[in-house]
């Protein structure tokens, strides 16, 4: 199967006054695995619904392999889809379910259809289940049948709407792996909707993060993790500490932030992507990941360290998470992740210095004042 490109240009969906999707533009390469990731109500499922053709966009265009399909009926789009609850036809056997798209197309001989169904069942390792009904299968098996049915007619694009949401954690992880393997083997272009960031990060070539109908950032999992371009993305992906301060001196090379009377920090990273400069006095929010900080005894942290007091130490297997309160801003608490190798380095109420990897910090302008 050869995947094809999928491009969304200025896609918009309006329900009365509300915009469920606003100006969504995405160019997805052939054979690429792209996730639409966002909290519920962010418009990701609406976007998928428009790609599948169940709802017409209020504005914008959808093209598959360069062909405009914006106004095409869903049955003429030739898009595979795995539904959230699988939507396997309960009155048809597994064989009839998988044969359904082939019969609808009416171009295949009966024997060819039978052969293809066997191939698909083999592909998802369910040979021997052909004569059962969907409700006689477990959740994971039904999920695989749904994938087999969606792939049976070799669609150039496969849509998946939270297909693993109904499965338990163990099975979900196994299925993630299976789906990813299958996708790579077949070279299918996949658009995968999920609200589970781990799922999106592990499976996708690129992830589109959506919030409130808007595309926030579109990039590889590494880019999103290392270079979030908005506070929303920084907060949404992985664990993140936020600390509010004022800009003292912000240039393309460095950012000097004052957190309190006594604590001024010079960060080697520029505000945001380096293109935005902030005037002195601008309220800034510094974001830094727990694993990009370390703890030292009070006084050993060097000049660019934040004095703090350990509030709690949590053992999470391979690492410790320390909750550290800033010495002169007790309302601000940071999570610091430290590799666990033997003894607990610090106890509750220990005075420490928090040493930041200045290059790993992200600086955003503050929109509303609150301490995370």
């Amino acid at each position, binding site marked *: 199967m050869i995947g094809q490109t999928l491009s969304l240009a200025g896609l918009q969906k309006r329900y009365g006054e509300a915009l469920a999707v606003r100006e969504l533009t995405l160019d997805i390469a052939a054979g690429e695995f792209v996730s639409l990731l966002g909290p519920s109500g962010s418009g990701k499922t609406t976007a998928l619904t428009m790609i599948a053709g169940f709802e017409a966009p209020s504005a914008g265009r959808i093209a598959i392999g360069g062909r405009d399909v914006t106004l095409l009926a*869903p*049955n003429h789009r030739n898009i595979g889809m795995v539904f959230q609850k699988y*939507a396997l036809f309960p009155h048809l056997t597994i064989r009839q379910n998988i044969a359904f798209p082939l019969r609808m197309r009416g171009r295949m001989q009966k024997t060819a259809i039978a052969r293809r169904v066997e191939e698909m069942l083999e592909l998802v390792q369910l040979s021997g289940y052909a004569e059962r009904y969907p409700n006689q299968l477990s959740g994971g098996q039904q999920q695989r049948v749904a994938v087999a049915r969606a792939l049976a007619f070799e669609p150039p694009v496969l849509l998946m709407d939270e297909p693993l949401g109904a499965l338990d954690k163990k099975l979900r992880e196994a299925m993630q792996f299976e789906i990813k393997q299958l996708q790579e083997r077949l070279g299918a272009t996949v658009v995968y909707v999920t609200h589970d960031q781990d799922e999106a990060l592990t499976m996708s070539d690129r992830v589109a993060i959506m919030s409130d109908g808007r595309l926030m950032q579109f990039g590889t999992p590494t880019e999103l993790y290392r270079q979030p371009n908005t506070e929303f993305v920084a907060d949404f992906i992985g664990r993140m500490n936020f600390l509010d301060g004022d800009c003292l001196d912000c240039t393309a090379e460095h950012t000097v932030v004052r957190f309190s009377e006594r604590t001024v920090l010079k960060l080697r990273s520029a505000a945001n992507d380096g293109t935005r400069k902030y005037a002195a006095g601008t309220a800034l929010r510094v974001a830094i990941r727990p694993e990009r900080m370390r703890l030292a005894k009070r006084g050993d942290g060097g000049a660019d360290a934040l004095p703090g007091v350990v509030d709690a130490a949590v053992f999470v297997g391979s690492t410790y998470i320390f909750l550290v309160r800033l010495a002169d801003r007790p309302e601000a608490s940071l999570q610091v992740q430290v590799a666990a190798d033997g003894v607990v380095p610090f106890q509750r109420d220990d005075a420490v210095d928090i040493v930041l990897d200045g290059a790993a910090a992200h600086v955003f302008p503050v929109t509303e004042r609150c301490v995370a």
Partner: protein
Amino acid sequence: MTRSLTPLSSSPSFRRSSSARFYSPTASLALVTPLIAALLAGFLYPVARLIALSFSGGTLSHYRRVFTEPLHLDVLFGTIEVAFVVTVASLLLGFPVAYLMARLSKGLAMAVAACVFIPLWTSVLVRSYAWVVLLQRNGIINGLLIDTGVTEGPLKLIYTEGAVILAMTHVLMPFMILPIYSALRALPPDYVRAARNLGAGPIRAFVAVTLPLSLPGVFAGSVMCFVLALGFYITPALVGGPGSMLMATLIGQQTTVLLDWPFAAALSTVLLAVTLLFVLLFRRMLSLSKGLNSVY
């Protein structure tokens, strides 16, 4: 899903029913006792008496009369035929209404539901007399036909089998619409979407997915309609003539005019047996479609 309105297919779910977990056997028994007592006293006992009455004199002579006199057999087969035609007509006319109701937005669906329910809440007598007014010799329909020049004189509309079928279909339609509506309503929209996505046009998606999945509702509605039609009394008595007599009317005549109670009891027993036979037949048909049974 549609269990509550498809009594014929409901027995397995009863056993699985979660309420069994909340009530102890004693409490359950205490709760159903009044109903069972009422059924015993008000239904089973009279039916038993009726059946006993039909064998009065210790002979099968009443039954012999039912099955040997052509008039009675004609009425019996005529009744089955009318019930069948009424059921098919209700299905053909009711399915689109149920489908529309299931697809409309809440407000509009309520409006259509009101149109279905209000006749149901109106007395059968009133509805039947309405048909008399419409169909009689110098009634509304005949007046209209003459005024527009379609016919010269008044047509014989009332007291015909056609009138009986028309009025009964109207009266029984809600019993067809509601189970189908409930089955269609319970159908997740994803099924039709999946069918469309997999290459089916709107009509093929309907035939391949919506229709088969609504069949439990269709069966439930058909059985309800058919069984009710078999024993219908008021409507055929009012709009039907001597040539279109149904079983219930015949039985009524035997009890009130001819006062031949044992023979009426024999006729009733035959009607009861025929009704039960058809219910079993429908059940069998439903359980034969294995895939359909696995739906709910």
